[in-house]
Structure formats: C-alpha cells, structure tokens
C-alpha cells in the first residue's frame, strides 16, 4: 500500500512538472460551463468571451472548455483535469463551482483560477461578477410602464443574493413608475432547464402576468411568451434578439470578453493577482440590449436616461429611502447601499409579496 502511495505522489509530481512545462509556449485557458454553449443565455455569453480571448491572442493562447458540468465533485474532476493538462488559467462560471474551485486551487498553486459570482478567494483564486442589478433597474422601469394587467411575473433560479438583488432592483424601479404593480415570483431551482422554464412562464401568464422577467438561462420563456401573444419579455444574460422586437423588448447582456481578455493578458505578463471584481454598466460588463420599437418612444428615452445616469456613476439603483419587506428601515433618504449588504442580500424590499424560500 505504501508503495502505491509513493507511486501516486511521484506521478503527481511528474504530472505537475510536465503541466508547468507545457505552459511555456502557449497560454492555456480553461472554461467550465454549467449549461450547454448553445443555451442562448448565460453559458453562451461566457463562450463568446472565450472566443474573444482566442481572437485577441491568436496563436499565443489555447482554450479548452467542458460544458454542462454538474456543480459538485464532477466539477472538481473537470477542473483538476484541465489543470493537469497544463491550463494556466481556469474560469469556473457558476456559483456552485465555488468549493470545488477552492479545493482544486489548493492542489495547483501555480494555476490561476477565476470563479464567477462567488465570494471565496485565495492567492490563486479571484472572483468576478457583474452588477446585473443595474440592468434590472432599466428592465423594471420598462416593465412597470409596459404592463397593463399590473402583474409582472418573475422566474427566479435559486434564492441566492444575486437573484434576490435582481428582483428587488426590478421591483423598485417598476414600482416607481407604476405604484399599482405587483410581482409574482416562481422559483425554478435550475439555471438551465427549458421545459421547467417554459412551465414557469406559462403558470405566470395564466395568473395574469403580461410581463415576464427571468433569471434563468434559456430562451424557453421567450418562446412561451410568444405563443401566449401579448406578453413582454427581456433577454437574459444574452441579447436573445431572435425574439425581438416582440415579445423581447430589451435585454441585459453580460459582456465577459473584455474581462477575460484582460485576465488572460495578466497571466501572460505575469501580473495576475487575486482580486474581487464587480463591474457594471459603467465598465461595460453589463450592457442593455437594444430597446425595440414595441416600447413607446418616451419610455425608451427614460430608460436610456436611467442607463446613462448609472454609466456616469450619478445614480445607484439602491438609493434610499428604502424599507425592507417587514417595514423596517434599510436605507435612509439619499443613502446608497454598500456592496457588502448587496453581496449578501437575503431580504425583499417593502411591497414585494411572498417569502424568500427558507
């Protein structure tokens, strides 16, 4: 038994050495995806970022990816495999990859890891995310103006802070322009499951919603809305422009390309450092897809002004006075939410109905 352990560790050392050697000529960048690259949303955009890296650096870089990787031990194996085969930088693009990323990073101190939407960092693990809630503010504004039934349906993925932040931001800005608006929220407990997402959209439409917002990755809700007729939707994570100009009237686009290029460059130059990046509209990580002509001109103008204010840093979507759902004070008049509270947001703001699943 001792002998096999010895063998294994010797082989491990060899593997590490050859991995490091392979790194000399080309920079190898790995991507771990939670959905298929053809999901048309979240993973699709990450893959576009990967292709942008290839285009930017050409022969100097090699990228690999594995799609539809379950969050858990399977992810850990895929990451280890990439590291063994000489990856210098690995992007793990789902929240559930957090612990696996940290575990693998411990074993490969010379490989850099970038985990999307998590909060655990290490010397060789950086985290990055986008301020999607800024896009939700624009979306909420348009949604509040567009709804006739005053019922807005929201397909939640998982009740994690990122998603709750989005709901709060959308609701806040819908309510501002339409005090009668009401949100109905369905939790799908999935990032990508077209059948479930379509069911959720149908249920919401049957309950009277004429605007559907989604925090899931497929275009199934768009298709369900199209079938139903007079229902407005927004592209999520990607433009989903194949459903424009209606039902998709606008979108929140995650543009990872500049970040991926910058981080790959940093690895090439040897300047990579662990960091916690949280960029928004101003930096270009969050973009608003074209607002279609189905939206009245004045509403479109207001929405663009809102976007411009955030891009200029003049407006923060969570600016007081805002109360929590239970009526207690959260932000005083003019006070702006701090990133710490936003990052761990686990409460609804005043006016939202229902409870966050516990």
């Amino acid at each position, binding site marked *: 038994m001792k002998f096999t352990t010895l063998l*294994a560790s010797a082989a*491990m050392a060899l593997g590490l050495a*050859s991995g490091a050697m392979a790194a000399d000529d080309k920079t190898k960048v*790995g991507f771990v995806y939670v959905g298929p690259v053809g999901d048309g949303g979240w993973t699709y955009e990450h893959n576009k970022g990967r292709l942008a890296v290839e285009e930017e650096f050409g022969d100097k870089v090699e990228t*690999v990816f594995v799609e*539809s990787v379950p969050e*858990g031990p399977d992810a850990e*194996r895929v990451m280890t495999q990439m590291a063994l085969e000489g990856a210098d930088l690995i992007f793990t693009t789902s929240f559930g990859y957090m612990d696996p990323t940290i575990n693998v990073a411990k074993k490969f101190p010379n490989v850099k890891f970038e985990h999307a939407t998590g*909060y655990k960092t290490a010397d060789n693990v950086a985290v990055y995310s986008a301020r999607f809630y800024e896009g939700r503010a624009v979306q909420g504004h348009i949604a509040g103006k567009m709804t006739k039934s005053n019922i807005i349906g929201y397909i939640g993925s998982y009740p994690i802070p990122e998603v709750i932040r989005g709901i709060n931001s959308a609701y806040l800005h819908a309510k501002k322009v339409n005090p009668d608006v009401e949100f109905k929220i369905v939790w799908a407990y999935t990032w990508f499951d077209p059948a479930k997402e379509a069911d959720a959209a149908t249920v919401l439409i049957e309950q009277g919603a004429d605007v559907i917002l989604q925090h899931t990755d497929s275009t199934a809700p768009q298709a369900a809305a199209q079938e139903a007729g007079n229902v407005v939707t927004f592209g999520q994570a990607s433009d989903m422009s194949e459903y424009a100009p209606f039902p998709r009237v606008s979108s929140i686009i995650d543009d990872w390309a500049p970040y991926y290029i910058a981080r790959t460059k940093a690895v090439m130059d040897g300047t990579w450092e662990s960091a916690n990046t949280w960029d928004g509209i101003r930096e270009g990580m969050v973009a608003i897809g074209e607002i279609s002509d189905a939206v009245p001109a004045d509403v479109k103008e207001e929405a663009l002004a809102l976007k411009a204010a955030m891009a200029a840093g003049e407006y923060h979507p969570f600016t007081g006075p805002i109360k929590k759902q239970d009526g207690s004070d959260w932000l005083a008049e003019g006070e702006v939410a701090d990133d710490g509270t936003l990052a761990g947001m686990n409460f609804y703001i005043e006016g939202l109905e229902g409870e966050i699943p516990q």
Partner: protein
Amino acid sequence: MIVLEKRPQPSKAWSYATPVVAVIATMVFGGILFAILGKNPIEAIGTIFWEPLFGEFAFYYRPQLLVKGAPLVLIAIGLALGFRAGIWNIGAEGQYIMGAIFGAGAGLAFYPLDAFYIFPIMVIAGAFGGWLWAMIPAFLKVRFGTNEILVSLMLVYVAEQMLASVSLGLLKNPEGFGFPGSRNLQSYDSAHNAELIAGSGMHWGVVTALIAVIFSYILLNRHMLGFHIRLTGEAPRAAKFAGVNPARLILFCLGLSGALAGLAGMFEVSGPSGVVSIDFNVGYGFTAIIVAFLGRLHPVGILLAGGLMALTYIGGEIAQSQLGLPAAAIQVFQGMLLFFLLAFDLLTNYRIRAARSEVA
C-alpha cells in the same frame, strides 16, 4: 424474410455475450457519430476508453473511476435484487437524496463536536433515510396494492423539493453569507468521509460498494432468501407453492435497495461532494438502473458495468476538453450503450432465422 424464433431455452452464451457485443456496437456507431461531427473517431473512442485508464494522467483518473463508480454500484446492487424479483424501485434517486439529507443532518447536529462516533451515526442515519423513503412505496404496495414504479418515481420529485428546502433553511451554512447550501463536511473532520489512502480514491463508500457486491452474491447464490427472490422473478406461481411471502419480499427488496441508495448518498455528501446543496443529486439513482441491467442484474456484472459507466463519464469529459466534442454527443454515446444492450438482449431469448415467405 427474417423472422424471430423463440428459443426453447434462453441462450446462456448470448446472455454473457450481449454486454460485450453492445459495447462494441456502441463504439462502432459512436465512432460514426463522432466522424459526422468532424472528429477522428478512433482518437475520440480511444480518448474515452484509453485515456482514463492508461493515459498520461491515469494516476488521477483511476481513483476517480472509483469515486464515480462506487455510488452507481452500491445503488445498482440494491436495485438488482428487487428487479430480479419483479419489484421495480425506480426512485433510487430520491432515496439517495434522503440518505444524504439524513446523513449530513446527523453529522451537522453534532457540529463542532469532535468525536469518533459521529461518522458511524451518520452512516446509520443515511441508510435509515433511504430505507424510510423506500418504505413509503413498499408499504403502499403491500397495504393498498399501489404501483411501486409510479410511487417511487414520484417520490424523487418530493425528495428534490425537500433537498431544496433543507439547503435553504434547516441545514444552511450559518456562515454562508445567505447563500444556500450546508457547511462543508470535508472541513469537519469527524464527519468527513475522507480517502482511506490519500490519492487512492478509496473512501468508505467504495469499500461499502465492494462489500455489497460480495454479500449480494452470497445472498443470491447461497441463501434461501436469494433463492426466493430469483424464484419470484422467474416463476411467481412456483414461488407461491414454495411458501414465499410476497409482502415480506417486497418490504425486504425495497427496504434494502433504499438503504443502499441512502448509504450512497450519505457517503457522497460526506466525501466527494461535501455539501448539501440544491443541486446535490446528479442522477446516480437513475444511471444505476442502466448499470443494473448492463450488469445483467448479477453482482459481479454490476461491478464491471459500474466501472464502464464511470469510464464513459470521465473519458467523455476528457474528450470534451481535448477534442472539443459536445457534451450532448457523449450523452448520446451513453444512451447508445443501453439501447444496444436491450436490442441485443433479444438474442438471448430469440434467434434470428431467414425464412421463406409463405402464402398466408
């Protein structure tokens, strides 16, 4: 014209040959599929089957085969006992989830106490959780004659909801910044199902799976109960005359398969996975059904089939990252395996003969 003719006796030779022929057919047709996708089929098949076992990084993949295969084997062993007796537990996925919830819950209840007895308690709790969940369809079948296929399958979805609920509430990590998911059991030594030898992939779940294979073999071949199980499946009327109590057999088979699935879930959550999270289950309970049939419901066959299935998973991931094969192509490849197995299985009971068409 080709006709199928029923064999007077099932062919022993074909029953052994079928899995091998199915694997070869899968390689051939999978190769064609990969070729259509523009990949070198020899290289792709080679990557899937060779790389994990003998490739450059086999020292890492071989232990991973154990990690991936153990839950499949453990669950499939339990299922196969029931399948042999014509008792269809399709809900192992749910029992797996409940085993993980009970096991992890028992461990986390002691947090942060450090004691040797915590892990054994978790093992018992995990088995109990799976057993309890399987007892629902068992009891309903015995008492009211409900269909265990439907009840056990539907209970998977109930278990998934419970998993989401405990991940968000009862077992949520208090230090997790509001994110769902439990504490990581890997960093709680008393509850951690660690590798017994570092780097070997051998954790208690692998050991238990091997023990289950041995006991199941003995049970089926040397024990009266095993004889009753086989008899009930092959000749229900004869079983009745032999004095087999069907109710007891149902309770035993469903209970045991539930307990084994529960154990698999418990070993997974306390070891490779570490956390109870909403997406904890990845389909082992369903894949194990394929493994059970691929292994001809025979303990040793299941052991081999579990290894083969694990191989296609791990090799498939390697093929994805090295050759850029889409994940869906790998899933089709795995699907082909079951399809060809069932198709060639026909030859066990039938023979193909060329017959002259006759006037009706």
